[in-house]
Every structure is written in structure tokens, then in C-alpha cells.
């Protein structure tokens, strides 16, 4: 399977919405709360089919999270759905106090995350959500890579006993996994064959997994082997999988649709340093600058989150190490 032969799926957002429809049909306690976001969340069919299970809050993200926490405290399984940019910034204190600290297992769903709203500018980008949520105790953090991971993450979230944040984008994604893939919150998925030795470890999260995976194919053409991990859960964080990938590779690249500060890269680097694993590592993400505008793909290319860009970074890193 390469980037040309990988089948395209739908947007992870579509899979989220259709999975929720299935689940809600059999469970009246599943509620969706929206902040004038049912259209953006592809939840209009849900609202039509289960009008009693969708609670509209209006354009009020803080209210959305507060009400969701109240509902959850009364036993409802609540998916609070709003663009990731507003949900994890505007409503951060509600997430921190009313959801995480109070241990109300709301499923906080950040739609159109990262730079999905690329042309709309910084107000609409969420490049901070991993960082702020990682600094808040008691909320799991998931960013599925493709349609398969999205469906499994949403199913896993329904009965998840802890608060959980799931974020994804709105562009159609390549299908990277077999539908039977083993998915567990907190367990990374290795996407390349397990070996004793790799040239490069590519650790990626969310919609940055696809370019990392395709980069491994570009590198394979040059005879280089990769260990590609979809680290879909930032919390719980799969230290064992990361340690395997890193310690069996010559160098490591982390890839994320997030600020280079406080996301997957920082998490991996902190883990490695403290585990005494000193190793060349390069963090690819959105740098600490005024983010360029454009489509998600254009922004990815701009910052080297692409098969070619990552392959180039890998080669540089390997040569650097060889010198």
C-alpha cells in the first residue's frame, strides 16, 4: 500500500457523526450538546432522527461545557461537540474544573481541529489544545488518524469512565488501518512491520499520521526502514511503544498538527530524557510564529508535514547522525 493505492475514506468528522447515530439508537442516555455547531459537526441527521438526544446551547461554548458536565453528573453520556479552537480555549476553565477536576466523564469533541479551518486564520486554529489539556489532570486526549481509528475511538469513549477529549478534522482522510485493527485508548498502533532495527522512527498523531506513513514509503524507496506509530492517545501515553520505536531506530521524528510546544513532540522528548534515552529527535509541527493561512494541506506542506517534507527531514537527521 502506498499513497497512490491507499483508499480514500470520508472525513473523520463524518465517521464520528455516523458512529454516534448508531450508538444513540440503542442508548437513550447518549446526548449530544452543540453550540450552533450541528451543521459543522455533521449532526443535522442526528438532530432530525433523535431530536430529544440533541441539546442545542447556542453560540456559548462555556455554557456548552458547563451544561454537559451537569448532564454527565446525572448519568448522561454526553458528547459536547464544538470547534476545537473555541472549545479548548474559550471553555477551558469549564473543562478544567467542571469536567476534569470534578471527574464528570464528558466526551469533549473538538471538531475541525488543528488547521482544518486553515484559511479562516488563527482564531479558528487549535494548535494549543494538546498543550493545555496535557497540563490538566484527569482528561484523556485522543486524536484519531483515520476513519477506522475515529469509529473505534468514539465507541470506546461512550463507556469510558474518565473525561476524554477527542479531536479531528473535516477533510477526507486516507484509510490507513484494517477495520479489525486493535484499538485501545492509550495504546499506540504500529503501522509498519515490527523489526529489530529501523533507520527512522516516525511518531505521529491525528491527521499528521497519514503524511508520516507516506513518508515511510518515500524512504523505503531509498532503502530506509521506518517504524511508524500512530500515537492516537496523548494521555494515557504509550511509553512502551514509544520506547520500542525510538530505541530500535537511529533517529526519531515526531509529527503533529499542533504547536511544536506542548504536544506529542514535547511529550516524547520529556519521556525519553527522563528515561535516560538520549537520542536524536526532531519535532515537526506548527512552529512558534504567526501561522500562515491556506488550506490544511497547504499549511501542512508549508511546515513540512508532508511525505516529501518528512522524508527530507529524516534524511537530514540520519546524515547528521552519520557525520
Amino acid at each position, binding site marked *: 500500500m502506498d499513497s497512490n493505492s491507499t483508499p480514500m475514506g470520508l472525513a473523520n468528522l463524518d465517521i464520528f457523526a455516523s458512529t454516534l447515530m448508531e450508538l444513540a439508537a440503542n442508548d437513550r442516555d447518549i446526548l449530544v450538546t*452543540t453550540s*450552533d*455547531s*450541528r*451543521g*459543522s459537526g455533521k449532526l443535522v441527521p442526528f438532530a432530525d432522527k433523535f431530536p430529544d438526544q440533541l441539546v*442545542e*446551547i*447556542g*453560540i*456559548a461554548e*462555556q*455554557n456548552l461545557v458547563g451544561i454537559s458536565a451537569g448532564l454527565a453528573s446525572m448519568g448522561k453520556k454526553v458528547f459536547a461537540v464544538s470547534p476545537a*479552537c*473555541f472549545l479548548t*480555549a*474559550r471553555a477551558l476553565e469549564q473543562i478544567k474544573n467542571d469536567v476534569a477536576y470534578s471527574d464528570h466523564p464528558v466526551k469533549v469533541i473538538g471538531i475541525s481541529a488543528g488547521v482544518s*479551518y486553515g*484559511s*479562516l*486564520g*488563527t*482564531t*479558528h486554529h487549535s494548535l494549543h489544545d494538546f498543550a493545555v489539556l496535557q497540563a490538566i489532570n484527569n482528561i484523556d486526549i485522543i486524536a484519531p488518524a483515520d476513519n477506522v481509528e475515529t469509529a473505534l475511538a468514539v465507541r470506546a469513549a461512550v463507556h469510558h469512565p474518565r473525561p476524554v477529549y477527542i479531536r479531528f478534522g473535516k477533510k477526507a482522510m486516507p484509510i490507513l488501518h484494517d477495520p479489525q485493527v486493535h484499538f485501545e485508548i492509550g495504546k499506540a498502533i504500529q503501522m509498519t512491520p515490527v523489526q529489530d532495527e529501523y533507520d527512522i522512527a516516525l511518531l505521529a498523531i491525528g491527521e499528521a499520521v497519514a503524511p508520516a506513513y507516506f513518508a515511510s514509503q518515500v524512504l523505503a524507496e531509498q532503502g530506509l526502514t521506518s517504524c511508524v506509530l500512530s500515537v492516537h492517545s496523548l494521555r494515557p501515553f504509550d511509553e512502551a511503544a514509544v520506547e520500542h520505536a525510538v530505541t530500535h531506530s537511529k533517529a526519531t521524528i515526531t509529527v503533529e498538527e499542533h504547536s511544536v510546544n506542548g504536544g506529542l513532540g514535547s511529550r516524547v522528548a520529556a519521556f525519553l530524557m527522563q528515561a535516560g534515552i538520549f537520542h536524536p529527535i526532531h519535532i515537526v509541527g506548527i512552529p512558534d510564529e504567526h501561522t*500562515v*493561512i*491556506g*488550506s490544511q494541506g*497547504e*499549511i501542512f506542506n*508549508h511546515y513540512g508535514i508532508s511525505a516529501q517534507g518528512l522524508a527530507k527531514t529524516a534524511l537530514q537527521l540520519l546524515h547528521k547522525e552519520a557525520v
Partner: protein
Amino acid sequence: MITTTHSTSYFRELQAKSLLYRMTLLKLIHAAKAGHTGGSLSCVDLLNVLYNHVMDITPENFSQRNRDHYVHSKGHAVEALYAVLADKGFFPWSDLETVGKYGSHFAGHPTRDIPGIEQNTGALGHGLALTVGMALAAKKDGLDHRMFTIMGDGELAEGSVWEASISAAHYKLDNLVAIIDRNTLQISGRTEDVMALEPLEDKFKAFGYAVRHVDGNDIAALVDLFDQLPFEPGKPNLVLAHTTKGKGVSFIEDKAPWHHKVPSETEYEIALRELGLAEKDLEAVDGLE
């Protein structure tokens, strides 16, 4: 600039500008294949009257503080603002060809990278607090300039709007003019179905505003209303501008999906034809005089 009685030709000049802005914003949205069609068309007459009749904001005085100021709180309707600012000479019209494109500074929401734009908006519910801060600064400096902002009606669900309102009344900011684009629609449908707002006049009055109603798509009515500022000394001003979302293009008017729908090739042509006919009508009336 401000006269107490205005000739009909003065109003027709402004009406012609509104048509130009409508055509421009549709062109932008059509070219970028993205944008906020309905909300831009509903507030463009307000922006027109503010920038061409009420506020003393020009490219020449923009770097100064002792002038009026404007915050586009409903930032998604940036295309309307871009059209007005280009016409005011803040940047060449041709700059607008880059809107929404990779590497452009003209994003889908207002940013201070663009000459003429005061505040970065786009996340709803921020504009009023910013405007309160600006109005308060003007008061402290003894400046008698006014601070204007336009909010959407759906935006009023944000608690921050009401927090800022309490402050505006507390600090007696009669130099602040908050305008609600009361088009009765938001993304998901009617505001009253999504999250009911009424009775808005009572709510705003209770929060300490001097409240006025106006037809927000009627140039003459807007000119007349804004000439009366400040409405009541010591109170912040609030204008409930009753507008039609999508105003000016028959098939776009008052339809929720046109919030961010982009006109197809045919729809774009029909829209321009409708606006072109309206322009001819204006010219014909002018010719009669």
C-alpha cells in the same frame, strides 16, 4: 462631513456604494470559494453608513488615536469589511484577489495585518469587551471620539457580551455604540429556535443601554439615527438594527444555509445581474433630477 439635512442624491450615492460593496463581497466569496455570504450582505449597509457618514476613520488618520474606532465583532462577515476598506483607500482593490489564499494576509476573519482593521476578531463574543476597553481609554484621555462595534444576534448567546455590557453601563460609556445585526438567523436556523433572545430591547435596557431600533438596511434611516448620537448622555448606545440576512440578492435573502454557502457560477451571475439592475434603477432616478 456630517450635515443635519441630507439631499436625496447624498443618500443615492451611499446606496450606490452599498451596491458596489455587495458586488465586491460576492466576487470575493465566489473567487475564494469560501466566505460568509449572508452575514456580510446583512451588515454591509451598516458598515457603509458608519465608514462613509458617521465615523472619521481614514487611511490618513488611522495611526492616530484621536479618531473614531470600529471593531468588527461578527468577524466572519469580513468580506463586507474588506470591500468597504478597499473603497476607503486602505489598500488597493486588487489586494482582495488574494483573500483566503495560501500565504495571503487577507484571512477569512479580520486581522490587524490588514490596513484599516483595528482588532483581530472571528471568535464571537470578543468585540464588545475590546470596544469597552477602547471607549474607557478614550474617556480617560478626555477624547470625545466614539467606539463602534457590530455584533451578530446569534453572538449574543456568548456570556462575554453580557459581562461587557455590565461594564459599559458601569463606566457610563456614552461614547460606545454597540450595534446588533438583528437578522434573526444564525447557522442552525432562527435565533429564536436555536437559543431564544427576546425580549432583547428589555434585556439591553435592563443592562443600562440607551436602546434604539432601526431598519439596518435602510441608508436614510441609519444616517438619521446615527446623527442623533449619543442617544442619552451617560449611557452606552445600543442599536437594534433589524436587517435581512443576505439582503440584496433575492434567493439569498433570509435563508439560513446562505450563512456560509458559496454561490455557484450560475447563482453568482444571477446575483450580479440583480445587483446590476438595482444599480440601473438608482441611476435612472438620478437622471430624472
